[in-house]
C-alpha cells in the first residue's frame, strides 16, 4: 500500500471506482429529475425558466 502512486490511488480498486460511479449517477439523476422533470407544480414554477433554457420537456 505504501508504494502506491497518486495515479494508482485514484484508480485504486475497481470496486471503489464503481461505488463512486453508481452513487454519483444516482445522486445526479435525482438532482436532474427534481429540477428538470418532476411533475410538481411548486418545483415546476421554481425551476420554470431554467427548465426551458435546458430544453427539458416542459408544460
Amino acid at each position, binding site marked *: 500500500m505504501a508504494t502506491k502512486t497518486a495515479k494508482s490511488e485514484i484508480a485504486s480498486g475497481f470496486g471503489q471506482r464503481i461505488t463512486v*460511479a453508481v452513487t454519483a449517477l444516482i445522486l445526479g439523476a*435525482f*438532482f436532474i429529475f*427534481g429540477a428538470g422533470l418532476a411533475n410538481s407544480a411548486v418545483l415546476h414554477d*421554481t425551476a*420554470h425558466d431554467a427548465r426551458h433554457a435546458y430544453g427539458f*420537456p416542459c*408544460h
Partner: protein
Amino acid sequence: MMVRFFLAAIVAGLIAGVFMSVAQEIKVTPLILHAEEFENVGEGDVEQSLSTRGSSILALAGLLNPVTTAYAHEGDDGGTLFGLGRLSGTILANLVVGAGFALLLLGVVMLTGIPITAKTGVLWGAAGWLTFQFLPALGLPPELPGFPAAELADRQVWWVATVILSAVGLYLLIGRPETWSKIAGVIVLASPHLYGAPQPEIITSDVPALLAAEFAVAALATTAFFWVVLGLLMGAAMDRLDEHA
C-alpha cells in the same frame, strides 16, 4: 477518501451553474418573458372562442395536464419553493442542475475509466452537451412557453430514453476502438430519432416564429457554454485531486 470526488464534482457544478445563470439571464430569459406575452394573449383567446376545434383540444389538454400551463399561474398551485422570486428560483434551479450534471459526468467518467483532465475537459463537456442538449433537441427542440407540444409524459419518456441511448451510443462510438462497437454506437445514437419524438397534433402557436428560432439557438448556445465550463472545471478539479492524492 471517495468523498473528495463528490465534493469536487458538486463544487464544479455549482460554479458552472452560476456561469449558466448569468448567460441565461442575458440570452434566454428575455426571450421567455417575451414569449409569455403572446402566450397569455393566446389563453385569453382560448377562453373566448372555445367553439373552435383547435382551442377546445388545447383547453382539454390543459385540464388533463396537472402541471400549470404557464409561469403566470404562480400562486394558484402553491407558488415556488421557499417562496423564491423568479430570478432566485432560476438561479437555485441552475445550481441544482449544475451539481446534478456534474455528478452524472463524474459517474460516467468513473464508469468508463476514461479520465477527465483540464485538457480533455472540453471534450467531456462536448459529449455532455451532445447527450443532454443537442441530440434530444433534434426530436424535441428547446420550446418556449406557449408552444404546441405533445403529452408531457410522452415527451419526458422520449427525452430520458434519448439521453441514455445517446450516452451509450457516444461511448460505443468514441470510447471503444473496436469496429463493431463504432457501428453499434451509430445505430444506438440514431435509434431514438428513427423511432421519432412525440409530436403535437396541432402545430400552430401565438408565439412568433422569430422568437422560437432565436430561443432554440440561445438555449443550445448557452448550454454549450455551460457544458464547456463544467468540463473544464471538472477536469481541473480532477487534476488537483490527482496531485494531492
